[in-house]
Each structure stands twice: as C-alpha cells, then as structure tokens.
C-alpha cells in the first residue's frame, strides 16, 4: 500500500454500463469515489470493493478494481474475511441503509467493534429502492411507503449513533450533491486505519425523491449544514456567522456578534478526541434545531484487528516449538510399534 501511482478518475471506471436511474444520487458518489481512488494512488490491483445487495451494491461492477458483489447484508463479513486474509489490500465496502442496518446489522456493528481496516460507505436513501419502495431502518417515523401505507410506526436508526454505540473510531457524513466534499471524505476514510464509516445521503429519485432536500437544496444548504474539519471552528451559514457552542452540556446554535457571542466562544472540532460525547451530539444534529453535520466527525486512532492478528501469529511463531505440520503430527504423546 506504500507505492503511490498517478491515476486519473477514468482509470477506475469499468467498461460496464452504469444502470442506476437517471438522477439517482449514487452516480455522484461513484464519481466522487473514482476521483478519490485516483488521488489516493494505491495500485489498482490492491483495491477490492465489496458489496451486498441493493441498488448501491451494484457499485463493484462499475469500478475497474477487484470486486465482490456479495449477498444481502453480508458484505461486512465478506470484506472482513478478505482484509484479515490479506491485510495489504485496500478494502472498500459499498452498502445501503437496508443492507448494512437491517439484514446486515449484526455484521456491521461487529466489523466496527473489531476495528478492521475497512472503508464502509453507507448509501442512505431512507428507502428500499431495488425492491421498489419499502421503508428502511433509516426511514423517518411516519414515512408513507409501499409497506407502510399509513406511515411507519418505528423510529429510525441514526447511523452515527449506531457507529459510536458499536465503539466506532471513524464516522463521517456526506451528501450526494457535494461531490468534492465526498471525495475529500473518502480519501480520509481510506487513509484512516480501522473501520471507517461514511454515511452518504443519497437521493432515490424514483421511490423517495427529495428525502434529503431539506439539506441538499442549494438555496438554503449553507444555513442547514455544517462542514466539520478537525482543528477548525464549528462555523456555518451563508454569511459564516453561525456557530456551535456548548452550554448546559448541550450543543447550541448561536449567531456570532449577537447576544454577546464572539468567534472565541465557538467550539473547535476535535475529531481525534477519544471521548465520543461531543461526536455523538454532533452526529445526531438535525434540522430544524441544528445544522446537519457533514465531514469527518470522529477519527480516533486505535489498533486494527487484522494487524493484531498478524502480530499475534508473529509473536507465537517467534518462540514456537512446532514449526511445520510434521512437528505437529509427532508432538505430544506418541508411541512406536515395530
């Protein structure tokens, strides 16, 4: 993974026709992804893209790296096997809100808990697209879908909260319309050693059109999202005059220059803080009380599973008496008959 090669985004596009609906948010994520892959410069043969089932999971066919289109919900497990077997590979997992959080919820949280170095992009369109419009574990309560004609009565998962609950070390969020931001985040996810989860808000133009309009519309986007960058002030707004402060153990939106608040009062984002308290609050912010947090919310260094496995093997081997199968076969209690 050390060698850096000069690529262009086109080098990572496969010759397969992309079969997502015109206007689907997935196109934008694909474009951002090939751009990041080119920028990262890891030799193409060392990249593996794994997916489960769903619209987004067709992704591996559209990139020219190694790819594995798995079965529903199991991408994290397949990817974990690949990475553990060969830690030198750069492993991406493409998944959706249904694939990762419903049928694959168990594998998802356990991959995070183990901190295997996977880069997992969760395409969150808050709907089941490929099966034509049923509610998902991230659909807002009350969502009217084909399987909830009178509205859902179950609260949705908040992905960031789930990641932090599973002791996640990296969580970021992006939105389909912001391709440059997505690309920047994917690069950081790839460089992070451990399980990186990126929630990508994508629009399903057919079955859940406009689900993220409240944030994505250019007209008011700047007032409704905040882009967090490590070491920078938590400032947002069209006029860069709004910010986040911590009061009574809670986040609060203030206007700089109003009510006595100055830039000095505004929080500085520390993605590397081990204590997940603020990260959880940031991840859970939503309209209308708060801006939606985009960018890398949490990135805390920790040992990775696959390296610990390798290390343990190396340690045991260094003082092992049994060095090959013949040694093992003849170890312990044996007797000879002549």
């Amino acid at each position, binding site marked *: 993974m050390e060698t850096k090669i000069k690529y262009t985004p086109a080098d990572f596009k496969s010759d397969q026709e992309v079969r997502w609906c015109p206007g689907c948010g997935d196109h934008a994520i694909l474009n951002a992804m090939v751009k990041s892959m080119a920028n990262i410069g890891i030799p193409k043969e060392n990249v593996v893209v794994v997916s489960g089932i769903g619209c987004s999971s067709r992704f591996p066919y559209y990139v020219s790296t190694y790819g594995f289109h798995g079965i529903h919900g199991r991408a994290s497990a397949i990817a974990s096997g690949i990475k*553990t077997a060969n830690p030198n590979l750069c492993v991406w997992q493409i998944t959706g809100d249904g694939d990762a959080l419903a049928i694959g919820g168990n594998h998802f949280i356990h991959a995070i808990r183990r901190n295997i170095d996977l880069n997992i992009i969760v395409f969150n369109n808050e709907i089941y697209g490929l099966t034509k419009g049923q509610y998902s574990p991230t659909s807002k309560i009350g969502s009217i879908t084909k399987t909830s004609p009178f509205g859902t009565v179950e609260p949705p998962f908040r992905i960031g909260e789930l990641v932090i609950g599973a002791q996640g070390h990296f969580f970021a969020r992006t939105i389909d319309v912001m391709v440059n931001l997505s690309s920047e985040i994917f690069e950081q996810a790839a460089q992070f050693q451990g399980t990186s989860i990126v929630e990508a808000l994508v629009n399903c133009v057919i079955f859940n059109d406009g689900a993220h309009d409240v944030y994505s519309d250019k007209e008011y986007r700047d007032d409704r999202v905040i882009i967090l960058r490590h070491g920078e002030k938590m400032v947002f707004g069209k006029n860069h005059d709004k910010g986040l402060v911590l009061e009574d153990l809670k986040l609060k939106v203030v206007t700089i220059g109003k009510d006595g608040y100055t830039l000095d009062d505004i929080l500085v984002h520390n993605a590397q803080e081990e204590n997940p308290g603020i990260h959880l609050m940031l991840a859970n912010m939503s309209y209308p009380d708060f801006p939606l947090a985009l960018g890398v919310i949490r990135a805390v260094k920790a040992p990775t599973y696959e390296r610990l496995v390798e290390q343990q093997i190396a340690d045991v081997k260094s003082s092992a008496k049994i060095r090959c199968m013949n040694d093992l076969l003849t170890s312990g209690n044996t007797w*000879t008959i002549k």
Partner: protein
Amino acid sequence: MAEKSKVIEKEAIVIRFSGDSGDGMQLTGTQFSDTSALFGNDVSTFPDYPAEIRAPQGTVGGVSGFQVHIGSTDVTTPGDFCDVLVAMNPAALKANIRWVKPGGTIIVNIDSFNEKNLAKAGYTSNPLPDYQKGDFNIIEAPITTLTQEAMKEITNDNKTVLRTRNMFALGMTYFMFHRPLDYTLSFFEKKFSKQPDVAKANKLVLEAGYHYAETIEAIANKRVVVAPAKLEPGTYRNINGNTATAWGLIAAAEKAQLPLFLGSYPITPATEILMELAARKDLGVKTFQAEDEIAGICTAIGAAYAGSLAATSTSGPGLSLKSEAMGLAVMTELPLVVINVQRGGPSTGLPTKTEQSDLLQALFGRNGECPMVVIAASTPSNCFTYSYMAAKIALEHMTPVILLTDGFLANGTEPWKIPTMESLPEITPRYAPKDAQYQPYARNSEWLYRYWALPGTPGHEHRVGGLEKMDVTGTVSYVPENHQVMCNYRDEKVARVQKVIPLQTVEGDQSGDLLVVGWGGTYGHLSHAVKNLRKAGNKVGHCHFNYINPLPANVEEIFSKFKKIVVCELNFGQLANYLRMKHQKFEYLQYNKLMGLPFTANELEEHLKNLI
C-alpha cells in the same frame, strides 16, 4: 504391585465411567484410554454427555458418561455393552445399567447412595441388593470417604475432595486392568504445574484408589490384562475426529503452500475444530470467531477470494444458516471447505448426540441448482484424510466442498498411525496464469474449473458475485441461454470430480446374499456386525461410502453382485433415497435409528441376520 493376585488375559474389555456432568468423567475416561493406547492397545472411545454444563446435580438427565473399548485385536467400535461400569452416584447407575453386560462388574460410590440421591435418581429404594441378586458383580466402594482420607494431609476442603474423587475411581480401574500410573501422574504434573498441592492431592487419590482395589477380593482375584494390539508398525497417537479434521486442513494448507483461514462460530459438537485451529498460531493459522454462522462462512468466502485455503466449521443448525452463502460460494466458484459435524436434529435437537440426518441438507439444501461436492469421514482418525481431501478437491476443482462428520466421530478417539507430510498427495491450486489476459469465467476444458486470480495481481482485476455471470467474461448476464450453459457447467464440474475419487471398495464378500451399505460415522459398527455375520458363515459384503457427491463410478457394478441391499443409517433413510434417485434399478432395504446414539453392532447383527 500385588503380583500374587490372579491375572486373567482377555482380548478386549469395555469400561464405562459415569457420574454427574461435573464429576470429571470425560477426563477420567480420556486418561484411561490414553494410558491404554500408550500401553499399546487398540482403543475406541465414546463420550456420551448432556448439553447442559452442570445439569441438575444427581439427576438422570445430568449424567455424563465415557465408554472405552480396549483390545489386543482390531477395535472398530467403542463397544455395545460394558464389562465394567463405574457409577459415581445413583443417577449414573440408573442411566447406565442398561449398558452393562450380564455378569458385568459395577463399581459404585456407595457414599453417594443416600436417600436424597436415590430419590433424585428416581429410585424408591436402594436398587443395589436387587442388582446384586441379579447377574451383576457389585463393588460398593466408599469413594468420597476414602478420597477425603487420602488427601487429608493436604486439604480437607470439600470442593477439592469432590473434584478429585474421580481419580480414586480411575485408580481402581488401573489396578483392575493392570494399567501403569505414570501417564496420568505426569499429566497431573503438567496440568497442575502451578498448583503443586493439587497435583499432589490427585496423585495421592489415584494411588489410594489403586491400592484400595488391591484389597478388594472380588477385584484382586480377577485382574484382567489386555495385551498390546498387533497394530501395523509405525508411530501412533490417539486422536479424536475434531482434532483430526482440524489437522487435515492444516496439512492441506501446508501442502498447497497457502495460508489457512477458518471463519467459524462456536457450536456443539464442532467447536473443538475452531479451538484447535485457534491454538495453531505457530503454524500461521488465522481463525476468525465470527458474530454468527453466516459471518463464519462469509468471512471464509472472503478469505478464499483473497487467496487462502478457507474453511468454516459448524453443526446442523449452523449449516442451515450457511445455506445462502454456500450458494454464493457455488456461484463464485471459489474453493471452500464447509465442515458439518452432524448432531441430533431437527432445530436445536440433541446437541451432544450423534445422528446422520443432514445428508440431504448437504446435498440439496440450497436455493437453485446448487451442486457441491459432499464427502463423509467414517472413523475418528480418517477425519484427517477426508478433511485433507475436501481441501484438495476444493482447491483443484474450484468448488465448495462439504465434509460431513458427526458427534460420534468428533468426540470419539482411536489410535492413529501418524502419516508424514511427504506421504500425502500433492495439491495444485488452479491459479490464473500470470501473464495471460484474465477472464474470470474462462474454464479448464478437462475439469471445467475457472481459474483463481488473487487480489494483488496486476492486470487480473475482476468482479465476482452472486448474480448469474456471462460465460467466459463474467459480466452480469440475464441471457436465458447463458443461464442454461452456466448451470450445466456448475453441475458437470462437480460430476467430473468422480474421475479423481477412488473406486468404491467392498469389505467382506464381494458378491453374495446381502450387501450392507452405510456412510460416514457408522463404519465401525457396521464393519463389526458384518464380520460377525461372515464368521457365522453368511455371504455378506460391506460397502461404506465416503464420497457421496459425486458417488464413485463403480456403484452399479458393486450393487448388482448382491441379492439384497440394505442401507443402514442414523436417519430415516437419506442415503437410501439418494441411491434410489441415482441408481434406480436396485431395491434398497433400510435399517434406521434415531435415538441420538450410534448403532450397536449387536442390534445390527440381529436385524441383518433376518435379511439373509
């Protein structure tokens, strides 16, 4: 040693240790069998224990047993009935009296025969006087009291006494059967190296049991010795089926020069495979204890894609959970070994008991036309051979392979002539040629496997997955004719494995009145029964399958040489039905049992006799 006592020589004896599930009967039995194996006997063991770790104390449901059969000739089963039963409490006696031979000896821990324990076991009065009057030789040994007495200098802690009294019983049996103590003594030293007091207490109790037996006239006058067996020359070790299975995989990985990866989730009675491989970091084995059965196989599929010899181990319910992922392995045509240690089903069923009822699940339990190679081991030690062969076939034919063992093989032990790595057949993984252009679904024309291109190889980037793929190019394809072609390829690829597996052999008569057909773990019992039938002058053959899909090429030839065919299985007739499908022109009689127990050679003999 009291050399003056009378010694009787016997060809074989069977001894059964039984007690509460916390009484250490498995350990006691293992010590007796290891000591006997080192002494040179042929040995076969059968642990029989409940699923509960500590079932209600003193109840019949909580009884744990361990049967050992030692012999100076070929021992193929753990024995139907025992010559000696050790019963540590009334419940153990109640649960196991049915397994004692007429005239057999029963050693009971008389200290535990109080009103409370008798009631717990469901006895309304002390049954010993009745048994004594019957055809049993009862030895009432105050085992708890004498254990206390033996270790009083070290401790009088009641817990230690309870934990150690099994060694008193072991000591008694060592005297009865002229076994040396040194193997067990050195076991104590190793196991309790950090607790010298405990090691010493165990030693004192073992010796006390030995010397106590010497004072019992009924034992001292009837000491039995079983001479070493005339086994083939070679170096031997005792091995159980699960260890042998794990070792077969390590050996295959070493031969194929591949890293070994096991993705698995603990499940009785397969867990020991995961445990054994987890301990083999010295040989570079990677084990992944997954969050569930599905992740167990999916991590293994990932590892296979990445270039490992990959395996997953489970038992019945786990195999059900892995079904969809096995289909993925069939579709992606990756090498994978799926080990199913069968247990009593359906559902959770009888976790610690044996059965052969997953055969049809292994053969057909997946959506779509989804052929996999299916192999079954038939003795504890040949689990090594067949797990090695499962890996070889998986790697050389680019296919998932199911290896079936069962609870009886998994926990049973026998002496095993240790092979050398040099004696094992070569394994040639089907790597994609480095320089050529790579087409993921281009096939070898002779065997129809596709080639294995490992991530990390420049120029071989490709995509695989569960969707149907275009022949040769491997792009997603919904072309109707292509699906037919690919289904045919997958089927024919597995069918062609028939050309590399050995021809089926028959033991005993090669033609005659009755062919006894079996598969998997029933080998020992069937073989024993057939030998006895032949001794009685019958013309009987024994055809025991290890390769089930595909079946060997000469099945029809074998079957046509017998007047009758009877398929004996621990299920309702799964192999029989499979044979009816594959070889329709024969009539198949059946003998089946579903009790969570192996056949007894005796019941087989009785039944088969009537068919001739």
